[in-house]
């Protein structure tokens, strides 16, 4: 069990934690905190879900015209 971390610090560093951009000791402390703090867990889940919705925005069916263009481009080279 690592040293406990306060809710304020968890919220402060939550996005870096979700981005996997945090040192391993802090990551462990935040993971343990989220396992027993319902308020912070709820906030983390919200941010995760929002992130998943944002990621969907980068997936748009490419038009057939673009596929044809790429094929003809490859044929030329």
């Amino acid at each position, binding site marked *: 069990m690592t040293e406990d971390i306060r809710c304020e610090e968890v919220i402060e560093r939550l996005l870096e934690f979700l981005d996997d951009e945090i040192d391993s000791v802090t990551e462990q402390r935040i993971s343990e905190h989220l396992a027993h703090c319902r308020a912070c867990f709820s906030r983390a889940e919200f941010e995760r879900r929002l992130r998943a919705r944002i990621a969907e925005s980068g997936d748009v069916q*490419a038009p057939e015209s673009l596929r044809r263009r790429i094929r003809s481009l490859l044929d030329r080279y």
Partner: protein
Amino acid sequence: MIEGRAEAPRERRAGASDEVRRRFFEADVERLMDRLFGTALRLTRNRADAEDIVAETLAQAWRRIGTMRDRQCFEKWVFRILINTFISDYRHRRAQPAQDALDSDDELDRFSLYEQVHQPFLLWWGDPERQLLDKFLREDIDHALDALPEAYRVVVVMVEVLGFSYAETAGTLQVPVGTVRSRLNRGRALLQHALWRQARQLGIHGAHARGESR
């Protein structure tokens, strides 16, 4: 005679390897095509421009495919080309200067959609935060992303949509990691603020908001 026999297989090998390379390239590109187009669309906010950016990206990738050593790295590599193509070509063609980062604004930088919606007394029997996210249409999220100034939009797209690390984002954009962090924070806050504004305009915020007027 001997030389002639030796040449023929070499030519066949070269031809076959080009064919294999193209087959692999096309398979990898097809797998990524919707994400390439979607990412380009989020960056350019325009379908015709997005097609141009993807075509230019793949032309460059195909020209440089010989430098690819590990096919596992293809995805990151090709998206890095896409980002660079957007930043250089697109900006030049449109003669659009990069939008400067906005001045720091602590209150805005700390904006949290969750805090706007969260109702502690509903903790055990309601979930207005989740309901809000479920009510957003795909186009609501697209509009909020598209409304971000370019400096923030690029970073948010790289980290949240493409899953680039801060260091990869900084390396591709040739800015310090600290700049990526601050633009990401601001970009996320602006994005959440835009979503909150939309939620209020559409009357979709809160657990019992359906009947609310605009």
